[in-house]
């Protein structure tokens, strides 16, 4: 059985896409075949981290949802980005960055059931071990679907007042949907924080295990989302933390 992992955050700017990309890279380095789906149709971004140009992708998730192609045709093999350490494979299904495409999705919508069918076809067709779903912030219908079909949910939050309420709501919704495994990742924690104190406070507040507390990193900011941190700095302590998260989610 393939493992479906949704990476979600209630608000934007938490580093959700970066986390998804790094998890995918770490799995691929571990020899797994990984699919990454950008379901953030309204504000796509993860393709940038994988160095994918608009022109590189012939088809996008949008095309699949509009019946222009099947889902496998929208999958780009981005294993090259991981470099020689990649012993598995990474396939990215990007969302269209074309403004008209985005507007059309917002205006016309699409058949949400296609999304779960697509995930299924993708896992089967590409014989995936792990499917990472980079979700849209908030709790709209496609996000709820992504969470519902996931074996594991990683909720990314910053230690920021604006993130507390939404994170709590996400956790409760996932609980209603009986997601088998759920973890919180605290991202961009200022160095003045006491890591253990944050971990304890957050896990007690949401009654949910904390996968890791990732400190704010100038090294990571320096990449400006143009590269995968785990590939560029394989020996960085943050990568060790992320690897721990990856292992915990795919137990």
């Amino acid at each position, binding site marked *: *059985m393939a493992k479906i992992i949704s990476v979600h955050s209630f608000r934007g700017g938490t580093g959700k896409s970066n986390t998804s990309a790094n998890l995918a890279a770490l799995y691929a380095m571990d020899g797994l075949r990984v699919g990454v789906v950008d379901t953030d149709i309204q504000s796509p971004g993860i393709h940038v981290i994988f160095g994918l140009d608009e022109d590189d992708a012939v088809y996008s998730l949008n095309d699949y949802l509009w019946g222009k192609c099947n889902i496998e045709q929208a999958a780009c093999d981005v294993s090259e980005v991981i470099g020689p350490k990649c012993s598995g494979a990474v396939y990215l299904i990007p969302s269209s960055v074309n403004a008209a495409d985005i507007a059309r999705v917002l205006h016309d919508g699409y058949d949400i059931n296609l999304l779960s069918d697509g995930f299924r076809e993708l896992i089967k067709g590409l014989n995936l071990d792990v499917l990472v779903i980079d979700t849209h912030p908030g709790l709209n219908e496609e996000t709820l679907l992504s969470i*519902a*079909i996931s074996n594991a949910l990683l909720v990314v939050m910053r230690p920021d007042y604006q993130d507390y309420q939404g994170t709590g*709501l996400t956790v409760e919704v996932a609980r209603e949907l*009986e997601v*088998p495994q759920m973890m919180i990742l605290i991202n961009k924690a200022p160095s003045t924080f006491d890591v253990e104190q944050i971990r304890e406070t957050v896990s007690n507040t949401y009654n949910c295990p904390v996968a890791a507390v990732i400190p704010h990193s100038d090294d990571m900011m320096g990449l400006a989302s143009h590269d995968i941190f785990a590939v560029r700095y394989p020996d960085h302590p943050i990568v060790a933390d992320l690897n721990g998260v990856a292992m915990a989610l795919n137990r």
Partner: protein
Amino acid sequence: MGCIYGIANFLSGKYHLPGCNFAEMRPQVVLPMFMGILYGPAAGFFCGGLGDMLGYTIAGKGPFFAVHWSFANGLMGFIPGLAGYFRLKPVDAIASFVKLLILLLLACSLPFAFSTGVEYWLGRMSFYQAMFGFFLPIFITDTLWAFILVPPIMQATRLLISRIEMRTILAVYYLLIMTVLATWLSSIIVTMQDQIEVEELYTLGILTLVVLIVGLAVCAVSSKKITAPIMNLTEAARRVAQGDYSHVDKLHAISNRSDELGTMAGVFSDMVKAVEKREQDLQQQVRTLKVTVDRNKQNADLKKITGSDYFKTLKKKAGDLRLRTGENHD
């Protein structure tokens, strides 16, 4: 510069100081001194020595008319040239300004003590004549010219850094110099009118120099008293910028003063203490994270989502969906 010095020497040769027919009013002595300060001892030496020889040549006496005097003139440029070795380029503090004045004083005394000594040793003049006819007139007038002219020239060429400490001492310095100059010139005029003896004039000159030097010493000490607290405050501020708040305790001596600087130091100390406390409070706040969740709002939001038909269907299907979607083999 050597040429100018030589020509100036020739020209000024016509105006002799009272009581001696050899020594003259020579503001140009600052030329070799300044050459020395600018380009080092060798440059100062050649400017002074060769300039002096040129002066004799122009006057028709030949370059080697008085070799020991030319050598003395060279030394007069050589000694200020040592300024670079004492790190007096640029002059940026009272201590280095005082050192510079000492160099100038030496430049105006040692070389001419040597040359008049040679004259006396050669038996060309009596001790009295060497002392009152040559050494003292040259020493006193040259020192005054050097003291009057070298600092402004250095200021113009930016070799004097205008820090507060320097500004304070320079203000008093110029005032002092002007007073001394006025005294000295009036004494010369009085002497020329034969109202006092030449010996008395030079005793007066020495006294004037002593007054000048003592005045400068007092001025240096009092300037230091004004600027030292400012330096201390600056250092304390720099430490605070680096996160070290402890240095402020050392400002007690200043804040106990009853003047404006004391007030400033007191206010500064209070400010630093307040900043330190605020920073500590802030750090304390940040370190212990408080997560607050409005449970009522959360429950209301949750009901909105879970109450929809879409959610109810999704919830029913979820388990099945997970099973079916995860199949990666037929």
